[in-house]
């Protein structure tokens, strides 16, 4: 898509540029929002929220865009999906009256639950991401490869190495517990 928007004129408040920007990117924003919208959510509201966020506070968000770092369409897709998630989170945030909560549940637990910390360097960020994509998002190898721009074989080998590390780590941990 041609990134023809004259953003400098747009953030100065040029109405004609804004109108052109809206016409050019409304379809893209709609597509991006559609990917995150839950059933029953008005897509029009999401698109409106995205454009509102872009021009809010004298185009504060739009001013953060840097053409040297990423394409406008890519950036708008990220912004649109993130805005859509925020909007849905706000609308579906559960609210419970404090009067309805039992008194015992309002107390603060004196002893915080200790979490067993794993060494930060156990898995590399890439390994963490790939195993998360496989087990959390149930993504196929080819999907992961496409999303990360790497070869499917690299996905398999990265997963394999990550699982070896995890097995080894937990095996050592169990061995240490038995010897105590």
């Amino acid at each position: 898509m041609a990134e023809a928007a004259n953003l400098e004129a747009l953030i100065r408040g040029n109405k004609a540029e804004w109108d052109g920007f809206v016409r050019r990117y409304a379809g893209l924003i709609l597509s991006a929002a559609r990917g995150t919208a839950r059933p029953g959510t008005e897509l029009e509201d999401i698109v409106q929220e995205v454009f509102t966020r872009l021009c809010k506070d004298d185009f504060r968000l739009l001013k953060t865009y840097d053409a040297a770092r990423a394409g406008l369409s890519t950036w708008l897709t990220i912004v649109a999906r993130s805005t859509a998630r925020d909007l849905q989170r706000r609308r579906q945030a559960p609210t419970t009256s404090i009067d309805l909560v039992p008194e015992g549940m309002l107390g603060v637990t004196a002893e915080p639950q200790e979490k067993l910390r794993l060494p930060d360097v156990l898995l590399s960020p890439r390994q963490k991401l790939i195993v998360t994509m496989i087990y959390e998002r149930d993504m196929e190898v080819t999907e992961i490869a496409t999303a990360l721009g790497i070869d499917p074989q690299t996905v398999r080998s990265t997963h394999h190495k990550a699982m070896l590390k995890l097995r080894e780590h937990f095996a050592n941990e169990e061995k240490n517990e038995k010897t105590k």
Partner: protein
Amino acid sequence: MAALGDDREDRALWRRWRDTTDLTAAEPDALALAAYAEGRLDEAAAEVVELWLAEHPESIGDIVAARAIGQRPPRLVFNNIVAHASELVPGSENVVAFRRPAVSSWRNALAWASIAASLVLVSFGGFSMGSSAYANLSGTSVSDGSSVDSPDNTGSIDTYFSDDSST
């Protein structure tokens, strides 16, 4: 061929690992995510994004969607969506407002003079017509009054009746 995620043992191992790790990554901004999606980040910057994505898997779809731009046709947008979004930015100072074409001063003066002359003519004509009408009416009433009210002029009525009777 079985998918990588089908292995129950591996999945259980991953769950155990996930439940024992804390969230540590700083959230990258939208521009960093977009740059990552386009493969423009260096290794160190990409690792920061990947670590955050691993801890926020709901955002992985954003990268997938951003990479897929151009592979799908643009969606048609209803006019009301575009209209509402356009209204968010009001008309700016750069927009030249409609101006009436300039009229030369002599034409302007001529127009006002014509209006003034028309008013004078209409006023004068009205005054003249009013004056002559009053003069006519007052002249008739004077003669009628003299014929009726004057005791010396009683013959006129007789004349009138006599004339009338004669006819």
